[in-house]
């Protein structure tokens, strides 16, 4: 009798959660499952096949994955290094009011991503861009055609723009885990600044640095709008390729597109999982 009551109680408890669960099912779980299923089924024979994944070995597909991984990895590394250094500069800035202004600026500029950002970089570094003109007229240096904003490295510059604030905002709390007493006692034992950072500071920061890297990597890998505005079809990235498939601009077996999507999900899944693990370990330092 009691068991029955408990059972009904449990059902009524969970029923309050159902609306949200149903929503997630309808708009997340089912579509993703259909995607995975579609990537494993042959269109014509309706049999399970790995052929779509094997087809990804084609030159253009491999290129898009290599490019996406290179882009994400490079912008993540640059973002982590620059973000940490700039984050430290902000963290140790003496005036608290100015520090708050910097942080506000970070929050505000993080809105400036996607197409407007890409366009802004064309204004700045395009063929007739501000910096391009400046280099030409003041320093007699011709940026083009050696460099182009519509290329891999142009994209890197645009991506770092939104990677940087993300990293700074992520690393700022981590600096609170490096106690000032440690720096003082290290100095009293004869260590200079470099030694301190190399042996104490960076190891303590390491979980946050890894968390930052994985987050930035995932962020860059999944980005679409910025790349689309700058590149259109000149340079292949995984997200662009999938986008072309949806838009019907490319005649192709949707199975390959779904295989690409599933592979992307796996890559993202690994990054996010690594991010979670790293964040949990990072929290240990700020709690102590």
């Amino acid at each position, binding site marked *: 009798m009691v068991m029955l009551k408990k059972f009904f109680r449990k059902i009524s408890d*969970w029923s*309050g*959660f159902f*609306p*949200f669960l149903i*929503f*997630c099912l309808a*708009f*997340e779980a089912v*579509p*993703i499952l*259909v*995607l995975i299923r579609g990537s494993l089924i042959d269109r014509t024979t309706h049999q399970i096949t790995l052929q779509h994944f094997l087809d990804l070995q084609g030159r253009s597909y491999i290129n898009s994955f290599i490019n996406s991984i290179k882009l994400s990895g490079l912008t993540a590394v640059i973002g982590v290094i620059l973000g940490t*250094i*700039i984050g430290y*500069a902000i*963290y140790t*800035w*003496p005036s*608290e009011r100015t520090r708050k202004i910097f942080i*506000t*600026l970070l*929050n*505000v*500029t993080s*809105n*400036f991503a996607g*197409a*407007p950002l890409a*366009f*802004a*970089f*064309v*204004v*700045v570094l395009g063929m*007739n861009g*501000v910096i391009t003109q*400046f280099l030409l*007229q*003041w320093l007699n240096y011709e940026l083009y055609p050696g460099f182009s904003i519509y290329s891999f490295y142009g994209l890197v510059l645009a991506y770092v*723009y939104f990677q940087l604030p993300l990293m700074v905002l992520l690393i700022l709390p981590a*600096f*609170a885990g490096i106690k*000032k007493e440690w720096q003082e006692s290290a100095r009293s034992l004869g260590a200079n600044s470099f030694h301190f950072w190399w042996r104490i500071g960076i190891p303590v920061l390491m979980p946050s640095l890894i968390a930052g890297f994985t987050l930035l990597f*995932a962020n860059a*890998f999944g980005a*679409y*709008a910025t790349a*689309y*505005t700058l590149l259109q079809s000149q340079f292949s990235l995984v997200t662009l390729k*999938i986008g072309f*498939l*949806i*838009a019907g601009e490319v005649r192709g077996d*949707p199975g390959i597109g779904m295989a690409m*999507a599933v592979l992307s*999900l796996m890559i993202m*899944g690994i990054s*996010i999982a690594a991010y979670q693990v790293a964040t949990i370990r990072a929290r240990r330092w700020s709690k*102590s």
Partner: protein
Amino acid sequence: MRKKPNLIGSLPNKKSRPTGWQILLIAFFLFYMLLPIVSTYVFSVATRWDRTILPEGYTLEFYQRAIQTSYFTITLRNSFILSMATVLVSLILIVPTVYWVHTRLVGAKPLLDVLMILPFGIPTVVLALALVQVYNFPPIARSPFLLIGAVVVYSMPFMYRPVSNAVQAINIHTLTEACQSLGANVFQILSKVIIPNIMSGILSGSLLVFSTVFAEYTLTSLLVGARFKTFPLLLVEYTRINGNIAASFSVISFTIAWLASILILWAGSQGQRPSKNVTRS
């Protein structure tokens, strides 16, 4: 439990000046962050700027033309509709769920947390592809309603975190029990007591979702495209037609996002003190 002093507020040297390195780094940082934004603003009011470092002349002509483009009001209206609808759906979906999980179903909280991290792991193109494959039948195929569903998924974490933080900051069990002892039902508890106390979280979440959705391009262009043109779509279209007008659109969209950010920061700072008073006594 004693909290270790937060270093941000307690640097040993009182009014020291920033070091050379700091100034250099911050200057580079400010330059890198602000130049694209400022250039866009200036470009939108420039007559001609492809031969010189500073514009050759200034004009408001492009703003005039921008406002007069055929789709200007339509896209702005569509973006507002999309953003408001998303905020509404998110609120109705998430706020009661957060409350429910915190009071009646605490064991589901880890599940809820994971579900709210999931959207970050799904690239927008992948979500778009998945949705297009599944919902390829009328009336939902390529409809704004599908878009709203997709965008709610995309923006869920941004509503969840402020609301969840706010709920955790107040003593929800004491409040709920007090209400129940006075005979209130769930709806009354939510509407008269809980929601006013987490209002800062609700406001922050709503504004975050609003500004995120207002600037959203990928899902909109891939799921509905020209059928429901939003402002970002118009902007991208004009980057290929007329750069100055595109810059004007950029300025408008960025200014709206900027205003929303300010409101978010303001909303986040509200309601911090009152809720503490409710539970302390």
